[in-house]
């Protein structure tokens, strides 16, 4: 049995590949260049990590997806409420500024971005590592960033007090839009990720 550190390294490698794919997919979806602004993986105490956004005034729209299958994960994508309107226009190839209020299409835009990004991650799992996974239809909510993030940690943590969190931030360069994406492996992922450690694909990374 490998050490927790080795397992975390395996998860980080998979996550990096997934995030690269996700960022390219995101650019294609909105037909605008998106770069990865931040990428980190860390063990997070659930109290410390939720304190970051606690009490903030910021309003965001978040899409939650469960990645179910051999290696269960949770996924969250969120963007500020005003920027969700810009993303809607980009997806619909409309002039930016056309969507002025958070309507059905703006909500659906975030839902679909969540769906496509989570699917991009699932594709990496299955194509590169042979791990069978499937995303559930996204649940979308618009609320305070602290509330959106809290619900994600509550969903992911269950009985755990610490989570291995992979955070990335995309920047849509032309419009200075920042989007956050998180993935967290759930109990039950360990065994299959363990077997991935031994695969030839993985060995070239460490």
């Amino acid at each position, binding site marked *: 049995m490998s050490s927790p550190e080795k397992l975390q390294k395996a998860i980080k490698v998979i996550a990096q590949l997934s995030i690269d794919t996700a960022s390219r*997919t995101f650019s*294609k*979806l909105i037909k605008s260049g998106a770069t990865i602004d931040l990428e980190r993986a860390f063990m997070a105490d659930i109290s410390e990590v939720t304190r970051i956004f606690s009490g903030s005034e910021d309003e965001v729209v978040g899409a939650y997806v469960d990645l179910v299958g051999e290696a269960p994960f949770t996924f969250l994508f969120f963007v500020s409420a005003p920027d969700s309107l810009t993303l*809607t226009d980009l*997806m*619909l*190839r409309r002039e930016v500024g056309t969507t002025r209020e958070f309507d*059905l*299409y703006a909500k*659906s*835009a975030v*839902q*679909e971005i969540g*769906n*496509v990004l989570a*699917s*991009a991650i*699932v*594709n990496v799992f*299955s*194509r590169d590592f042979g791990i069978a996974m*499937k*995303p*559930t*239809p996204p649940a979308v909510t618009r609320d305070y960033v602290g509330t959106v993030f809290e619900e994600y940690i509550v969903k992911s943590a269950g009985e755990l007090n610490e989570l291995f969190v992979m955070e990335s931030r995309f920047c849509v360069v032309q419009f200075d839009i920042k989007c956050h994406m998180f993935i967290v492996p759930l109990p039950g992922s360990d065994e299959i990720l363990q077997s991935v450690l031994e695969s030839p694909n993985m060995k070239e990374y460490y």
Partner: protein
Amino acid sequence: MGRRIMIVDDAPIVRLMLKDILVYNGYEVVAECSNGAEAVQTYKELKPDLVTLDIIMPEKDGIEALSEILAFDARARVVMVTAVDQREALMKAIRLGATDYIVKPFESERVVSAIANALQ
């Protein structure tokens, strides 16, 4: 060549994106459905020339809906639309009788060529 299309996807924005592409290219969108159950029912009522069918949807997924549509009409033309590159599900769909598939995020050109080929 028929030009009546039914769009099935649980995301309203995807339905609108597809509709914009199809209408711009001279097709008529006769119905939009947001889940597989609605898709099967509406197909039976309207018998469109072609269906674009999302795979992952709540209530009834695209594979199940495809199966029921083809059981009702063996000549139905269905183009699957998926964000997940699920080879197994797509191969199953093709074996069941789907005509083609489009992977999200899709380009207009790809949508148009898949639809045009399917309708020939």
